[in-house]
């Protein structure tokens, strides 16, 4: 079977796809649509009390950052955080979580750059959760329940989980599969807009851009390579990633015009970080 993507396979030839995201924090309003779109798309359960944010399952989670100043100089910024699908050190596929799973229930795909999760193989040791510095992995501490007739809105594209297993954002991999099936059937390549995650699609502010970081025609490529064609999204800002210095090589890039937000993306707030490129002298 030929690679319809046209970018080779993992056996040392041309690199496969690297699906990733650019999230514009200046557009994000913290509305939470991405969070619930993901829940609705991926059969994420809900329990009566979800106020303990340490055991609530939100594959996509919107954090509220603060500049730490007192009233009236306080500023806040919302930051949506899906799974980073880390490439790991040297972007070689040794994501922090993939390296440590003892049952190979999570794996890095060189074809798509996506870190998968096999719910039926996971036996819930939670080592991957300890390894993930982004806390992007969630455990089913309870048996998920769908009271009344809520089972009826479950999608057949995503396995429904049982208790005792870990789950996380999959960059809506089932949408990739469906899109690829169609592209393969029609003997053509996948278009940029054919495979988009639920959160990207739902965001009413248009703050999320999703695509193949290895495909130079895709907007995420243009933005992360700071090309002029990406200017409409970049608008003079420098993309940054969370915890970049830990060499996890995450696939989610953020844009913010505020220095304190960029700083908050590091492991230590002491690091000097600039939101906007220094254009050397003039505005």
């Amino acid at each position, binding site marked *: 079977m030929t690679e319809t993507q046209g970018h080779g396979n993992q056996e040392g030839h041309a690199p496969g796809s690297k699906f990733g995201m650019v999230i514009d924090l200046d557009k994000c*309003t913290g*509305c939470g*649509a991405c*969070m619930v779109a993901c829940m609705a798309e991926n059969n994420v359960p809900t329990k009566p009390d979800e106020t303990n944010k340490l055991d609530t399952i939100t594959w996509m989670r919107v954090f509220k950052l603060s500049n730490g100043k007192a009233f009236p100089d*306080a500023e806040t910024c919302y930051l949506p955080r899906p799974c980073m699908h880390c490439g790991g050190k040297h972007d070689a596929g040794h994501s922090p979580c993939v390296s440590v799973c003892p049952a190979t229930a999570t794996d890095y795909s060189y074809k798509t750059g996506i870190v998968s999760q096999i719910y039926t193989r996971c036996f819930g040791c939670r080592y991957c959760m300890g390894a993930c510095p982004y806390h992007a992995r969630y455990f089913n501490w309870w048996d998920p329940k769908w009271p009344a007739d*809520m089972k009826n809105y*479950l*999608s057949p594209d995503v396995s429904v989980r*049982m208790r005792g297993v870990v789950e996380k954002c999959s960059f809506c991999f089932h949408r990739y599969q469906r899109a690829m099936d169609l592209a393969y059937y029609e003997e053509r390549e996948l278009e940029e807009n054919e495979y988009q995650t639920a959160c990207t699609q739902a965001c009413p*502010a248009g703050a999320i851009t999703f695509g193949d970081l290895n495909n130079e025609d895709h907007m995420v490529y243009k933005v992360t390579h700071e090309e002029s064609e990406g200017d409409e999204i970049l608008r003079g800002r420098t993309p940054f990633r969370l915890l970049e210095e830990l060499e996890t090589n995450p696939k989610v890039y953020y844009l913010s015009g505020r220095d304190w937000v960029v700083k908050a993306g590091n492991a230590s707030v002491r690091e000097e970080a600039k939101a906007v490129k220094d254009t050397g002298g003039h505005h």
Partner: protein
Amino acid sequence: MKLNRRNFLLVSTAGAAGGAVGSMFSPLSWKLMDDSSVWSQNWPWTPVPLDGEVSFEETTCALCPGGCRVKVRKVDSRPVKLEGVDGGPVNDGGICILGLTALQLVYGPARVRTPLKRAGKRGEGKWVEITWDEAISDVSEKLAELKGAGQSKAVGCITNGAKGVTSALFARFMEAYGSPNHYWQATAWDSYEENIQRTLGLNGSAGFDLEKADYILSFGAGLLDGWGSPVRMFQAHSKWRENHDAHVTLVQIDAQLSNTAAKADKWLPINPGTEGAVAMAMAHVIISKNLYDRGYVNWSTTGFRDFFRTVQTEYAPEKVAKIACPVQKPEYVKKWTEELESRAIAFAKAEKPLALAGKGNGDRPVSQAELNAIQSLNALVGSINREEGGMVVIPDADKYPWPPVVLDADAKGYKPALVTTKGRTKYGASNLLSNLPKAINAQHGGLKALLVAGANPLYTLADTEETAAALQKIEYIVSFASQMDDTFTYADIILPDHIYLESTVDVPTPPGFAKPVYGLAKPVIDPVYKTKAMGDSIIEIAKAMGGTIAESFPWGGFGDAMEQAMNEKWNALDSDGVYVNEDFQPEKEGIRFRFFARAGMEDRISLQGSVEKYPLVITPCDTIRLSTGALADTPFMVKTVSDTKLKKRELVVQVNTMTAQQYGFKEGSQAILETPVAKATVLVHCSEEIAPGLVGVPRGLGHIAYDEFVGGKGTNYNTLISPVQDPATGFDVAWGIRAKLT
């Protein structure tokens, strides 16, 4: 065999190896192990959704007035996901947190699945299922009985606003029946309607061309917190950020760092309730610096001279700072005043400035005094009816071309509504629902029956205790609710409505839109349960009552009434689901804006409670994640609510760190929040996003009934306050209340 070491080793090794090999060949242990793990992967209580053919169907979301075009993804006939539809004038692919989770309203535990009749006492929660025939007869017989006894005016009806075909059918019913008591709850948009009538002499709604404005002064309007058409606002905000040619500035004048304030270019913090005064102060600056649009003011306004005098003498920024600036330290007051002045100047100098009002998500009315001041700013800079980026008036829709209502002698006679007020509104008493509970409680035998159609007054009206007492006095309450909401618990009979996905619903022009846009929802799934569209129910009730009432409802069903109502728009609505009046031009000829001298501070709406007893002030906060209207949050929405607003079942209030310390509270401390109206147990969150002396209370929590996901969580803000009448209109314009935390 001798048992020496050699033999021992031989025997034990052979035995062990043989045993190991043997058990490997026996399938039993492998099978058992494998079976047990497979069983854990296929627990019978873990659902396996059925697969099927995927299809998409489009409709218009009717859960809020926003009017977004959405599509439902179906697997065979089962709906599994809601998504936004690309293109279209309202949302262009976007969808909000409520729209996305509509399926939980369809299938959730709070759904009312069949008509119900109360068994047991009110509030016991005991219901018995009845058929639709029984339900319709029960209601029509009761109403007929009351009319026959000359009690037609003792029947009331509460709808979800005035607009839309369903509300119009209920209004029509009340007219044919002969009762003046049709009510709905006024919002900030009603305040705008009243103001438009007063200042521009027009009957219409406010529209704002926000996408093209370049300097927006928002006086507490939660533009990104649910104001207007939420998705449209998010997209407008994104457009502002994308604008290369002109940097669009949003200045949020707000008591708290709401999400809108957080994303604004500048947050000017003020004391709550001083929006009008601050607007007047800005007017003062604009006039003093001669930056106002002389052409517009001279040719298209009246009353400027008196206004000018009031502004210049009463509203100097330094004077206003004394009441509006939240931190009274001299250096800060100076900085604040300078900021106010510079922003007013920038506003006036901008090409397309626009000033907006409507606290929070806009479902609470704003006083005319405040609106006068804010609209005056628009007048001063010429934004009213400006070509681009300005404020326009969308004229009230024509009455539907339905046949005239047939009235009998009883219906023809004049009857005063229960609610009276000193104020004046263009809808008479109808948009004064906030005054109804008091009116009922003050009277003996005010209302004998009440139809609640798409509203949830027990939740949405201020002073829940008063509302509950009023409901208790009404012997027959009919609810058309689709969810087991708060008012549902007081009802005697339920005729459950469809969810919009199962029904034909019209969505009138969303509030704040700059041109008329109509939406139509058509059924995309078969009704899941034994529910019926409210429009159909009222038609059937009318028909069952016979006589002139039946004659006033000549249609076969709700669909026919809808089609007739939509008139020339029907074809476009039927095929595309949306109708836009692209050629719309606002009425400008001869329209003059009237400045009112009595604006801003003089009529500042006072707060209840004495400062000594209640040293703090409650100010409500809205977010898009908490629905504050008739419809409560879905389970997924509640899941996204921060633990700084709700913790387990307790409301969390926002208190400035210094204030918390002053009263001996730490992060997470439990406290009693008491107002002159009620008290509640809450938790304290120490925040820098609110000024000292204030208590930020999230709105949208504290529902009773519903289900385990939504019900019984937190406290309803409306429980803690009571209505404060705007002297001009009689609307409830309470923007807070005094409180204490112990």
